[in-house]
């Protein structure tokens, strides 16, 4: 319905038409087909979301639609932007189309801009790529674009270097570059994945209004069903290089037909939200049952000294009891990872006390401290970086045994490793493989096995599933949950994903700028937040239900000034 309203140069035809698109990568081990038989149209003013898990080929389709495929890729079929065929078109001609007919917003705003060039000049470069215009004129337009994408004080900011901007502002600059020549097609490849939820909400609002104003067609590539519900008119689901289902956003998200789509949507953790106006349940914080396992009391942490020092934590009090899971949430830079590191004994607090299993961690030294820390297991975010690439899976898992159980015989050790690998449901055959031969989910299970091999009383998990696909995330969390029931360890669960925390943790601690903003049982705190900050945080999470999300968005936009301060921009 949004399609027919706006008139553009080519009012009848689609802006993007992919017909039987295939992409094959030539690698040392032979040809790898990445995309097969993809067929889709995007009409002017329409937003089509291309969803799928990692490796499904969705980003490859996006790059093909820009003519930006890497050198070892071979495209077949047809990809036409505004009627112009891209496949087989020489590079020089493609450059004339990029940034004018079609332009692109990328996932990682931290690296998408040239660090040594002022942002105004980078925008002006895109303008002058396509229009003959004096430099001064282009610079003035760049400032105007910065104003349009909501950068405050654009004249002055235009002379800033990318490192002087926050992540959200950098993404706004990338968007300014993308709309500089009023393209008829905008391709956004995971445009908000690297951003905090509150910033994500602002960026999505911006993209939506820009596209609506100019009648731009949008190809949105994402794995986040909440973002799809928030933004898309139509959805195409990709699996192993092929589109398995296409339909309107309501059809696909609410009444999926294909088994894979159903499975995918089933694995998405949904943030349970109170209907606007619903009354709080009234239950306060239920006192946790078990003994205290770890306790931070009025902990402050300062990094550096002098005027450049950063106060990472101020007066943070936090306890985790046996058998329970405490979710630690907050935006990036709120200090949640630092708090987890204090609990691990990796960061020394500058004030306050830390007790681990009833012993003061700051006072214990040497062997006693090591014995204490042997009771803590840790799983980190990046399963690739946190395993030694030169060790086999079995060696990775056995390493804590060498450190803390030196008397174990090698037979005992082997039996223990086999046992724990079985518990995290890793096939025994993988024990002698290198971590790089495993999938992301399998690697994260190796990390988990390694964390659990000493039968810890506390598991600290810092964003353990944020690098994983939703279906894999669900499986990993299920294993953690089962093992927790079996062994009764306490879990400190750091995550930016409120939906995951809501499902996984009994209690939640919300952090903001190094302080505890709010705490309580997960059910009450996330459903009926007591502070504005938490309320904004919850309101900014897009839920994968287009009807509900439309209402939530309207409610959020009614409280205008609220979003700004939370984003810290």
């Amino acid at each position, binding site marked *: 319905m949004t399609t027919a309203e706006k008139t553009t140069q080519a009012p009848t035809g689609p802006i993007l038409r992919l017909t039987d698109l295939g992409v094959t990568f030539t690698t040392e081990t032979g040809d790898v087909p990445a995309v097969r038989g993809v067929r889709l149209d995007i009409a002017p003013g329409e937003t089509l979301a291309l969803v799928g898990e990692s490796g499904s080929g969705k980003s490859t389709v996006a790059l093909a639609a820009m003519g930006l495929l890497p050198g070892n890729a071979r495209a077949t079929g047809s990809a036409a932007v505004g009627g112009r065929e891209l496949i087989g078109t020489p590079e020089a001609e493609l450059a004339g189309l990029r940034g004018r007919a079609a332009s692109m917003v990328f996932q990682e705003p931290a690296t998408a801009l040239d660090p040594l060039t002022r942002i105004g000049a980078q925008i002006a470069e895109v303008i002058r*790529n396509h229009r003959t215009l004096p430099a001064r004129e282009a610079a003035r337009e760049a400032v105007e674009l910065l104003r349009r994408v909501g950068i405050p004080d654009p004249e002055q900011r235009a002379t800033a270097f990318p490192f002087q901007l926050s992540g959200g502002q950098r993404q706004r600059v990338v968007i300014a*570059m993308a709309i500089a020549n009023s393209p008829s097609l905008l391709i956004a490849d995971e445009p908000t994945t690297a951003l905090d939820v509150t910033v994500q909400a602002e960026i999505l609002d911006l993209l939506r209004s820009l596209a609506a104003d100019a009648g731009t067609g949008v190809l949105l590539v994402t794995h986040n069903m909440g973002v799809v519900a928030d933004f898309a008119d139509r959805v195409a689901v990709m699996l192993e290089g092929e589109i398995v289902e296409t339909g309107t956003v309501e059809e696909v998200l609410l009444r999926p037909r294909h088994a894979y789509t159903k499975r995918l949507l089933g694995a998405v953790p949904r943030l349970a939200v109170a209907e606007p106006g619903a009354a709080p349940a009234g239950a306060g914080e239920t006192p946790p049952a078990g003994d205290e396992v770890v306790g931070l009391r009025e902990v402050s942490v300062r990094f550096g000294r002098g005027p450049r020092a950063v106060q990472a934590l101020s007066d943070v009090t936090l306890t985790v009891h046996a058998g329970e899971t405490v979710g630690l949430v907050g935006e990036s830079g709120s200090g949640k990872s630092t708090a987890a590191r204090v609990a691990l004994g990796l960061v020394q607090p500058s004030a306050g006390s830390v007790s681990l299993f009833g012993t003061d961690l700051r006072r214990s030294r040497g062997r006693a401290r090591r014995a204490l820390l042997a009771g803590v297991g840790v799983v980190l975010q990046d399963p690739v970086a946190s395993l030694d690439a030169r060790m086999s899976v079995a060696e990775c898992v056995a390493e804590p045994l060498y450190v803390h159980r030196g008397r174990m015989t090698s037979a005992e050790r082997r039996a223990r490793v086999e046992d724990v690998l079985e518990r995290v449901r890793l096939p025994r055959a993988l024990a002698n493989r290198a971590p790089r031969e495993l999938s992301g989910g399998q690697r994260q299970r190796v990390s988990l096995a390694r964390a659990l091999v000493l039968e810890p009383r506390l598991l600290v998990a810092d964003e353990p599933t944020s690098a994983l696909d939703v279906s894999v995330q669900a499986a990993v969390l299920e294993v953690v949950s089962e093992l927790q029931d079996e062994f009764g360890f306490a879990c400190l669960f750091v995550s930016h994903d409120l939906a995951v925390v809501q499902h996984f943790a009994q209690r939640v601690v919300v952090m903001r700028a190094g302080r505890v903003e709010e705490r309580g049982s997960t059910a009450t705190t996330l459903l009926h937040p007591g502070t504005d900050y938490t309320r904004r945080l919850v309101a900014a999470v897009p839920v994968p239900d287009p009807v509900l999300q439309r209402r939530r968005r309207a409610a959020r936009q009614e409280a205008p000034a609220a979003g700004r301060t939370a984003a810290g921009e």
Partner: protein
Amino acid sequence: MANLLYLIRRVLQAVVVILIVTVVVFCLLHALPGGPARGILGPQATAQQIAQFNHEQGLDKPLPVQYVYYLRTLLHGDLGTSYTLNEGVSQLIAQRLPKTLVLTVLSAVVGLALAVPLGMWQAVRRNKPTDYVITTLSFVAYSTPVYFLGLILVLVFTQLLPWFPSQAPQGDSLGQVFADSNALVLPVIAGATSMVAVFSRYMRAATLENLSEDYVRTARAGGSRQRAILWRHVFRNSLTPVVAMLGYYVPVLFGGSLVVEQLFNYPGMGLLFWSAAQSSDYPVLLGCVLVISVATVVGTLLADILQRIIDPRVKAGTS
């Protein structure tokens, strides 16, 4: 203001490093067999003569006191007296240093001017025949001793193709040196070759890394052409690590001039150092060491300042 503070802090750091170098040089001077007296008076001197010399020169005082004297004479620009040339070390170095600077600076400029575009070109043509050929030549150039390279240059360009003289300019003043610029060609080529080899490798690696950066893709998505991306973005981003290496390359350049000057009979500091080493003329040797140390410290300082100019993040202390 921040720039000035930074400059002051860095100069102070440089002064500290140079002071440490003077301590080392001072200790080396006093570790000489028989001490400076034996060196100056020669092996025939009696113990009494040496004792008298030591007393006159203040060499019987405690070492820390002597070090203060040494520093004081250094501050007056006095580096001692050569054993063999019967001339002040400072005068000797003052005559020769400008000539060596001409040679090393010219070699560095020529070397960099070739290495930077060559490295970029290789990166763009990665794993194509040109890349392989240049890579091979780089390894050959880098692993060929400067002495051998110089001999080949002399053989080819003075004997087979008599284009250049085999001797470097012999004039005393810089004006005379430049007037005979034809004679500078071979020494500069000999000095620049290893620099081209090393820095084209750095530049190739840095360019390759930058070509795979996300910002290059962003620029392409905005419609920028390959040439514009290369010169407007990749060039400057690749230059920062190369500039950082420049300062550390100063002693290598001086080391190279040692051989080049000897080979082409160019009366600079390298030749001075060479002959002083042959005749165990320690004050001259240590004077040269001091000068080269100072040059290295100044070189790294200049490289750091240059890097601050290129990369605004260095200044802000974030990276």
